[in-house]
């Protein structure tokens, strides 16, 4: 019979089983409240999660999820091209309607985005340099983007001024498809970094920093070279 020894083993009594079940349920509830909720949702009614360092994990996960949601919402706004309906009034024979004269819009519709919908006139940007500095609180992130033409180069150097930052250097073309990612490099708990950045395509290229330490960090970025403009996005 099967591969087992004999089956005349002593079975647990019904009462014992009920006790085991109740114990299992209590253990599960304790773990849910003290471990799982802090780790996943940063919900920590007992304070145990904070003590164990799990609430922090939950906070980071929540923060990343919110930012990802905001990010995809933003990219949806960016990719939504304004629809311009040219209203050509067809004269109706039955009656004349006094309508305000339709003038062709002379200026492009104003879209509140950071992306130029219409490509700017080719500018010959003179090499320029810029220095930016700001403070990042624990958990805070910041993003600076340079508008650059393909193959344009800049020299950059950023420093956490004695602190440490996580960074992700990446670029987005003008109308990046959803989920697009082109990375130039990333790092964790880095005191600073310097080098050359060569734009892989027309668009916005730059750095996302995050302070994952417990103290405020002052970030200083120096950029010089061939860029059209520098903008703090986040």
């Amino acid at each position, binding site marked *: 019979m099967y591969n087992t*020894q004999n089956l005349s083993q002593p079975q647990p009594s019904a009462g014992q089983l009920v006790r085991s079940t109740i114990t299992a349920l209590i*253990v599960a509830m304790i773990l849910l409240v003290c471990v799982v909720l802090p780790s996943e949702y940063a919900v920590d009614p007992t304070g145990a999660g904070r003590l164990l360092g799990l609430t922090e*994990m939950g906070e980071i996960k929540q923060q990343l999820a919110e930012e990802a949601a905001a990010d995809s919402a933003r990219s949806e706004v960016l990719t939504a091209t304004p629809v311009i309906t040219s209203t050509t009034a067809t004269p109706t024979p039955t009656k004349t309607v006094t309508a305000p004269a339709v003038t062709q819009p002379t200026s492009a519709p104003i879209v509140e985005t950071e992306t130029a919908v219409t490509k700017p006139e080719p500018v010959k940007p003179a090499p320029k340099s810029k220095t930016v500095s700001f403070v990042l609180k624990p958990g805070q992130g910041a993003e600076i983007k340079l508008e650059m033409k393909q193959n344009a180069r800049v020299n950059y150097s950023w420093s956490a001024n004695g602190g440490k930052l996580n960074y992700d250097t990446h670029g987005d073309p003008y109308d990046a498809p959803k989920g697009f990612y082109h990375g130039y490099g990333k790092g964790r708990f880095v005191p600073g970094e310097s080098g050359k950045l060569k734009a*892989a395509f027309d668009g916005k290229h730059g750095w996302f920093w995050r302070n994952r330490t417990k103290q405020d960090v002052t970030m200083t970025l120096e950029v010089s070279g061939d860029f059209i403009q520098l903008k703090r996005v986040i």
Partner: protein
Amino acid sequence: MLLLSSIDAAFAHGVATGDKGYIQESSGILIIPFIYLGAKHMVTGYDHLLFLFGVIFFLYRLKDVGLYVTLFAVGHSVTLLLGVLSNISVSAYVVDAIIGFSVVYKALDNLGAFPRWFGFQPNTKIATLLFGLMHGFGLATKIQDFDISPDGLLVNLIAFNVGVEIGQILALSAILILMAFWRRSIHFMRHAYTANVTMMSLGFLLMGYQISGLILAQ
């Protein structure tokens, strides 16, 4: 180098979310969070649980349960550490297909198929250890995908492994309680046959799922 992220992964500035996102944002020794992640991985890893369920199906003495679970744990601890630290990368599909096969194997073993078909009973302890090694490669492959910081890696990996054991104990406790209820029924032996055939079918399903993934995934 151009990195195109998969569409189904949620990214904020190229940062993954969830457990992977947390790991990619962290550095240094984080013992308790990694214990949690290991336990979560085990409790939510249905393929590992299915195999364990098969292993303890006919084990009645807690001593035996402990022995087999220890064998399984030793197996996957070895390959988890070895795989991650030496950066051995096995296709996740292949490993998971083997894990699916381990479920099929254990179901057949429980049904007593080997003596009937081949005239001998393979050593169940050695089989458990070997499949433990396989499951560990599966865990290692998934951890490599997490991109853990080299800072504090070994300690965090050991913590993850401890977490896997804790998760195993928790899951097994629940399984054992349910099994005890079930074994009290006079129909248990009849159910047992059906249950193991069902388990075998699930094992085949897992294998098919992973092998088709291997063929279809770019």
